[in-house]
């Protein structure tokens, strides 16, 4: 059954709320700006609205429905306790500019979460306000630039491994840097020698992802950091894959200067169909003074101050590079993430990393006999397993395999990323899947792989059992229809 658009079923006289009808002759202070034109907004009574959105929801796939092995996205279970806590009136019904005396608990959440992040990463400080991972990345690079500027050291280049997330070069470019790639070696790691060779007084920073996007830990990480520091640069680590090492390895011990943390990946806040995320950035001692405003500071009397434009000097934070967002960050995600951390504790988070890595290696070793695994010989993978399409029959691609998996009841893995592997498939199971679920997936995955290798052309038109068959993306881009237009 097709669900119509609200514009097709609703009208401008129906409403699903009961509001007073204000006397139209009442005094207005709108200073001549009163609206006369219709807006054109459709309204539905509550029963119809609930039904519309409930039906729409059923055309979606979510973690709650099944296995969601989307590599580098860490689609883990979203605990319902987190949702309950985020809705407590003391968090949900509090204004960001309320007097700080009245929001000590909310500031307390920010402060407590900051402490957890610092201790889990072994870093010195944390900027809490970035609104998502990419925003955090930007924050980290801006801290680096601010630190370099503070020492009067104008550097122009940021080095990025070729397997990096697309946000890394985008971020560095935004911050005004020239981006240069560093190649990977045959084992799927950063080529340390190539990196060292390129370092010099023009390199502001290296942006590195560790575990990297091939799902491998960078064994030379410490050496890389030392080399970069020696050359006067900073090390930015993309924290997207922190779930592989949380509780077991502290990036601070590896010499990292800045790393954003995706709370929606590692710390289980819901992905919500594409957001909101939250991307606090942990900072080394060298970078901490440059983190943006606002930040929280607990004084000896236990009072938590919110340091904004005013008073930053009182807390030694005068070098802040500026402000990244209107308020204090993603509070709703902070409460969820802190709830999750308290639930797992230091022991549980360590287990998280171990189970995530165990599940990924189990998939790697259960698939490598049928599916090309380019770095299978590089040793254990971390939290995700990387495969390629080398042995597929002509005319069938990774895309076809992905769509075939949909018909098996699974969300596909990440496709065509990282770019270093042809037809890349990045499978990340996370720690919240049972062995039974993973075994079922492996069976289904193997069967679709066999079909792709055997040239089963029904894959080319998959999915066959989804709410839609393949969508015409070219048409969507050529003649973009981005807004409903009333039929005449």
């Amino acid at each position, binding site marked *: 059954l097709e669900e119509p658009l609200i514009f097709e079923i609703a009208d401008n006289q129906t409403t699903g709320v009961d509001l007073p009808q204000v006397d139209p002759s009442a005094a207005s202070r709108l200073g001549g700006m009163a609206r006369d034109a219709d807006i054109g907004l459709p309204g539905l009574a509550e029963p119809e609205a609930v039904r519309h959105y409930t039906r729409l929801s059923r055309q979606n796939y979510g*973690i709650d429905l099944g296995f969601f092995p989307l590599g580098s996205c860490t689609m883990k279970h979203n605990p319902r306790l987190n949702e309950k806590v985020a809705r407590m009136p003391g968090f949900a019904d509090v204004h960001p500019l309320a007097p700080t005396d009245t929001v000590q608990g909310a500031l307390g959440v920010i402060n407590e979460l900051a402490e957890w992040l610092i201790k889990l990463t072994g870093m010195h400080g944390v900027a809490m306000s970035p609104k998502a991972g990419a925003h955090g990345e930007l924050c980290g690079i801006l801290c680096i630039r601010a630190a370099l500027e503070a020492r009067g050291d104008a550097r122009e280049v940021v080095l990025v491994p070729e397997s990096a997330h697309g946000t890394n070069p985008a971020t560095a470019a935004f911050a005004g840097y020239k981006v240069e790639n560093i190649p990977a070696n045959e084992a799927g790691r950063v080529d340390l020698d190539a990196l060292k060779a390129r370092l010099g007084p023009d390199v502001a920073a290296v942006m590195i992802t560790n575990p990297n996007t091939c799902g491998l830990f960078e064994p030379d990480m410490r050496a890389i950091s030392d080399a970069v520091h020696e050359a006067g640069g900073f090390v930015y680590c993309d924290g997207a894959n922190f779930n592989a090492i949380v509780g077991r390895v502290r990036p601070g011990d590896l010499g990292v200067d800045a790393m954003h943390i995706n709370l929606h990946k590692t710390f289980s806040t819901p992905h919500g169909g594409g957001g909101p995320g939250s991307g606090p950035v942990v900072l080394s001692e060298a970078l901490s003074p440059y983190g943006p405003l606002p930040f929280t500071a607990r004084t000896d009397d236990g009072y938590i101050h919110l340091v904004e434009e005013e008073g930053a000097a009182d807390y030694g934070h005068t070098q802040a590079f500026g402000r990244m*967002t209107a308020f204090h960050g993603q509070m709703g995600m902070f409460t969820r993430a802190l709830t999750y951390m308290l639930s*797992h504790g230091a022991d549980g988070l360590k287990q998280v990393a171990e189970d995530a890595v165990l599940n990924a290696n189990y998939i790697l070793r259960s698939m490598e006999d049928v599916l090309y695994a380019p770095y299978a010989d590089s040793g254990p993978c971390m939290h995700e397993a990387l495969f390629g399409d080398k042995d597929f029959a002509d005319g069938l691609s990774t895309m076809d395999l992905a769509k075939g998996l949909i018909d098996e009841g699974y969300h596909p893995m990440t496709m065509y990323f990282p770019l270093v592997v042809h037809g890349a498939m990045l499978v990340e199971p996370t720690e919240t899947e049972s062995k039974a679920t993973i075994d079922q997936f492996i069976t289904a995955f193997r069967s679709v792989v066999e079909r792709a290798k055997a040239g089963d052309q029904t894959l080319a038109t998959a999915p066959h059992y989804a709410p839609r068959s393949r969508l015409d993306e070219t048409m969507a881009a050529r003649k973009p229809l981005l807004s409903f237009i009333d039929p005449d």
Partner: protein
Amino acid sequence: MRYLPLTDTDRSAMLDTIGAASVDDLFVDVPEVARLDGPIRDLPMHAGEMAVEKHMRGLSKQNLAAADAAFFLGAGAYRHHVPASVDHIIQRGEFLTAYTPYQPEIAQGTLQMLFEFQSQVARLYGCAVANASMYDGSTACWEAVAMAHRVTKRKRVVLSGALHPHYAEVVRTMAKFTDDEIAGAQPAIGAQPDNEGLIARIDDNTSCVVVQYPDILGRLPDLEEIAEAAHAKGALLIAVNTEPVALGAIKSPGELGADIVVGEGQSIGVGLQFGGPYLGLFAVRDKKHVRQMPGRLCGETVDADGKRGFVLTLSTREQHIRREKATSNICTNSGLCALAFSVHMTLLGEKGLRQLAAENHRLACIAADKLAAVPGVTVLNDSFFNEFTIMFDADARQVVRDLAEDKILAGVSLGRLYPDVDAFSGGLLVAVTETTTEEDIETLCSALKEKLS
């Protein structure tokens, strides 16, 4: 542990398959120096749901919830009643636990919702096209400035003095790194916005003029006049709205000639949440600018069977394709907040939004009149929607703190927003919504009367 399904039996069996003796063998690549031998010290161990809930409830109770106070805070975040069904819908697992809809065949729920959302926002803003949301109003504002730079190839940004100072600060911060030149100003305290002064600052190098509507002091600038002036110099007009409910009562920015309209959508469906997550809205009046827009866009298309369907489109603008040439480094949007906004807006509809706006304005007028009658209080605004500025002869920042002790959250002091401007210290922004009762207004008036006498 409750979120970890593997049993020890499972773990052993899996290690056997892998051919590893222990899980430590899977971490061999970690340099020795960074290998921890046990759980990180100084952090607590795992805890049951009951204990965690209790801890968090304890923190929650250290805050004064708006519902327990006479509440007049605004300045970019407004308290409105959100129907219970909105929260029900956004907690549907299929919405809550879905990823970005990169697999459109099994993500039509999110995609159709985004298409509807984009359409609602575009209409509300009087624009042709809206995107699928940004982080919040302030970051959307900066993205608009960056877009104007791309479109006009100019680098001089004229900010209205009455732009929310935090928004202005975000723009200034980002501009430092992009070499945009910011021509900002303090807000001119007056009954009317200073359009004349603003227009005088527009020159031939100006990429855009950024004007808030209603502005930070609650006044309603005539955007039409500014749009004409900007266009005459080849600059774009960026309108910033932090209270979408207002648009149920006042003309849309698009209608008045704004080229890019951005704003905060939090008022509809999202709630206060101590400042986040919020919902950045972003729209362009003219379709020709679509390919310069930042953020995700959802478009209509058909599937292989000819059925209507929706996909993310024009992704060649985005960072995961364009890398260092992307229009923005933005990746995540505010999908779940967009859903909340869209559901609430659908429940309101044209009729409900207009009633809601009218009720907000009615109560704000009452509040303004009653406050004006308090000795020592002057209402600054000639025009306003649901928020206005009062001035008195005392440190408003201290007054706010004092009244909070009696559970009166009197408003946002200008001193908090502009700590460096002594002249603003007697100013207080007072916001009134449908959640404000006439009793709340009386409470505020009495308390101020006592305080100022």
